[in-house]
């Protein structure tokens, strides 16, 4: 067998976590190759010109959770990462009113006051409390999950350190944290606010990407997860990368290349080659075989364990666990190319509010009803929609005078009770556009092109099993030392020299890069190196 080239490491999948992982391995001196099946790097973190002149962040659309140490260590700013702030959220209501929250806290206060002065005051306190909670929990984003079943001194120490960290937060913070870990986002927020549309909009952060409603316990944790972002050291800020989220992947890719990594696109891995229980290389779809000292999969757990390797090489309980890993997506995406800038009927004109997020979340019950449909396998006819107009902030995204509009939609269940996504896709797109039109009457006439993505389409295009945007639900039973499976949360696998580094590992999804970095630390440890 003709050996081509020999690498120190092969990373399967060129999503942002795969790229981060490869960059760190290269940085430590490992000769690293990344293999991406598509023609473009980035995985779910891509910008594509799907309609001439219009660039879309096709899948993930905002950035906030990217770990600052990664931006720093991989010098992503030097490699072209430019963040543009996304500063406001407006919630239009069916009765013509709206809630606006923006960088000007006085304007935010005034807007919420129209519903409740008490809430306007509580909002400041709430923001402050969440800032503190996110800061407190940030610690766990940066550590490898300990193994609570092990009696190894290293693991016991890690548990002890974790315990100490939590106790150091102080009594009140621990109670708040316990609430966030166990409550529903609506219950949690209703302890703060009485204005239902405000609770609805805030609680929507607790359902994004998950198959939960705002009243489902567990959604408060997802809410917290979305508060853990920081941009330029400012907590809780959301933003865009210039050029769309693909700009993030490009910057990481550029950094990885500069550090010596080789990045290949249109190279689909068929399976991992093992020899005597050790991973030694990969076989591509086209028959090519490439060998390396270690293989790292950034793909989701189902692909990593059930597809890339022979299940017979794995313990049966792991196979069973992973096959039951919950990774059914519940969100869809509708990308619109527009002939102009639409107007909100509740606040006509093109003010600051059009440069921020527009949230279709008029009440908690509205979102719950959308969830009710999804539970039984139907997409929501009246969905929750998180809208942004990237071209309003980054004019390069669309031709002059034209715009791109990104609509994140929930709920669109992967498994439909009737029909399939090929037959339901356009009906789903229509439901989204019709819902939007209730708030933006002039939108329909402006649509030049529409791209509708269901979880099934996400799976078909970029491979993520079930189309779950986090590579697996962020439910309590799939977090931390249970992610993706008990006993295998430390980025290793039962096959020697075979590792995992995707969002299906701790700390989960979002454009954080954290799984890629934490996996690199473990891989380098096994290689007798430290992450420099």
């Amino acid at each position, binding site marked *: 067998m003709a050996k081509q080239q020999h690498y120190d490491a092969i990373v399967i999948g060129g999503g942002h976590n795969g790229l981060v992982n490869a960059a760190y391995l290269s940085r430590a001196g490992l000769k690293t190759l990344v293999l991406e099946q598509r023609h473009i790097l980035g995985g779910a973190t891509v910008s594509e010109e799907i309609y001439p002149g219009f660039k879309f962040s096709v899948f993930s659309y905002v950035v906030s959770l990217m770990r600052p140490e990664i931006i720093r260590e991989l010098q992503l700013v030097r490699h072209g990462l430019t963040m543009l702030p996304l500063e406001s959220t407006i919630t239009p209501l069916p009765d013509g009113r709206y809630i606006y929250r923006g960088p000007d806290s006085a304007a935010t206060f005034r807007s919420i006051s129209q519903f409740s002065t008490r809430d306007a005051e509580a909002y400041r306190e709430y923001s402050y409390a969440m800032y503190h909670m996110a800061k407190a929990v940030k610690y766990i984003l940066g550590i490898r999950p300990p193994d609570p079943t092990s*009696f190894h001194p290293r693991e016991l120490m890690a548990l002890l350190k974790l315990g100490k960290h939590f106790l150091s937060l102080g009594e009140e913070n621990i109670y708040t944290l*316990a609430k966030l870990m166990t409550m529903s986002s609506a219950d949690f927020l209703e302890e703060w606010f009485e204005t239902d549309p405000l609770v609805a909009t805030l609680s929507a952060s607790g359902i994004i990407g998950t198959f939960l409603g705002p009243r489902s*316990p567990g959604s408060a944790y997802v809410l917290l997860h979305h508060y853990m972002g920081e941009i330029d050291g400012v907590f809780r800020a959301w933003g865009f990368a210039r050029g769309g989220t693909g700009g993030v992947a490009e910057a990481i890719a550029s950094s990885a290349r500069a550090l010596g990594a080789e990045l290949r696109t249109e190279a689909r891995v068929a399976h991992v080659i093992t020899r005597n229980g050790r991973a030694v290389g990969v076989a591509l779809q086209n028959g090519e075989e490439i060998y390396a000292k270690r293989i790292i999969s950034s793909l989701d757990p189902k692909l990593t364990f059930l597809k890339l390797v022979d299940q017979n090489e794995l313990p049966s309980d792991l196979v069973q666990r992973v096959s039951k890993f919950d990774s059914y997506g519940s969100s869809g995406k509708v990308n619109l190319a527009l002939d102009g800038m639409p107007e909100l009927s509740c606040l006509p004109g093109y003010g600051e509010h059009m440069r921020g997020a527009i949230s279709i979340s008029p009440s908690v019950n509205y979102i*719950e009803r959308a969830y009710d449909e999804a539970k039984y396998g139907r997409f929501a006819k009246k969905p929750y929609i998180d809208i942004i107009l990237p071209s309003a902030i980054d004019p390069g995204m669309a031709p002059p005078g034209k715009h791109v509009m990104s609509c994140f939609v929930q709920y669109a269940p992967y498994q439909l009770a009737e029909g399939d996504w090929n037959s339901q896709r356009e009906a789903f797109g229509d439901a989204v556009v019709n819902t939007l039109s209730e708030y933006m009457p002039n939108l329909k006439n402006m649509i030049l092109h529409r791209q509708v993505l269901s979880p099934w389409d996400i799976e078909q295009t970029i491979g993520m099993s079930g189309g779950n945007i986090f590579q697996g639900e962020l*439910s*309590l039973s799939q977090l931390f030392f249970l992610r993706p499976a008990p*006993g295998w949360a430390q980025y290793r696998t039962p096959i020697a020299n075979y590792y995992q580094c995707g969002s299906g590992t701790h700390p989960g999804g979002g454009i954080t890069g954290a799984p890629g970095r934490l996996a690199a630390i473990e891989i380098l440890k096994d290689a007798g190196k430290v992450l420099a």
Partner: protein
Amino acid sequence: MSAQANYDAIVIGGGHNGLVSALVLARAGRRVLVLERRSQVGGAASTEELIPGFRFNTGAPNANLLPPDVFSLFRKHPPSFIQPEVMSFAPQLDESAVTIWRSTERTAMELATHSANDARAYWEYARQLERFSGVLSKMAHLRPPSLTENPARLLRGWARLALDLRRLGGRDMMDFMRVLPMGAATWLNEHFETDAIKGLYAAYATTGVMQGPRASGTAFMLLYQHMGGLQPRVVVGGVGTVSAGLAAEAQEHGAEIRTDASVARILVKDGKVYGVELEGGEQLTARQVLSNADPYTTYIKLLGAAQLQPRMYRRLRSLKLRGSSATVHFALSGLPQFLAAVGQPDRLQGDIIISPSLDYAEQAYDDAKHGRLSAKPVMIARIPSLQDSTLAPARKHTLSVTVRYAPYALADSDWDAERERLGDLALDTLAEYAPNLRTLVEARHVITPLDYERDYGLAGGSEMHGQMGLDQLLLQRPIPGVIGHRLGKHAPQGLYICGAGGHPGGGLTGLPGLLAARQALEERA
């Protein structure tokens, strides 16, 4: 206030937990007074003649959860149990059924008619259920640690439990931690493929919570409902005999019990409680007060906001009560015949469960979530007279049906207007499975969540004294900042919650009463 307190301890409320507390305190030599608002003790562990000649368990239906160490408190008046062979029977509209027998083997054998996979899966499921529930039961016997004060003995107890947990072995321990916060639906889907089996367990998993079986935390409730193992126990003479027995034991140790004595407020001076005032103005003093009333009633109504630090008060205000069940009691002229159990009345000895699938239960919750009585409710029916002929006249029967979901807060109506519709719904739903039921009904008595509040003093109609969701368990039960069964330094001292609002929660366990009494004894040795 006189220099000498009338009693060492006053127990507000003579529910089974209050009586356990009274018994434990009296046995330790304390002078104890129990004050019960109603004219009989028992609270939500009572048997009442709601319809002349027919006696019904108005709260807890059986003694499945009563643990041995609480049972051992009985010396002279122990209740006696009948141990039915059937735990649960879930008839289906197609006249098939799932029966969970005391014997795992028999259950698995019958499940094979639905699915060979499920028959195999049941062995592993039953094993996990018993092991995990066993761990939970150990947790239920320990006072939860607090963030501020922990006696060394308590920490030792939890350390032992942690070690026990590790001894479960890596895999079981991880699985236990994985399953606890799960939705029951997820866990059941991992084991079974037959809707009827999953639906049956969904009925247990949604007890005491205003949540559907998909909700995180319902797997915990499913385990909690099996803390007594797979060993159903029906109380001879009705559940009320447990309460009556406890009352008699307590009295023999010198405890006084006054019925028709409604407490109006708890008396506080210098940051300490010193007694209670009854409706009518009579004041009774004691060095400690244990409240078997729910936390909302205890702290907000009887103690009063003025005695609570604002932060504590806010927490108590946001206590989630969320009563979600109603009960319809029927007096029957004969035994209903279930189409799925023709000629097999022994299958009706345990819980008869109407909950054909997870989606059925979830849809029932959807209605309630939007403030409506479930159009197709989850129901648990019991016919105690089948095994205990003392409960009904000869050849007649009592049928008690728990109807879920019946949300305390209705969106467009009120319970006084909906009472009869609820009764009809229970009858109509059950009659689909047992058509002759309609001809057997002699009388019925409906207890709505509002009735639970008005007649049994359960605030918000919450049978568990506060929803048993993950956010209201352990050191967060009933609210964050509790030290075992009392509030921390920001509230008057000497006041304990000894009812279901305290750890470990609701059900006929006696454990909140036991733990609260032990803490009260320790803290005033």
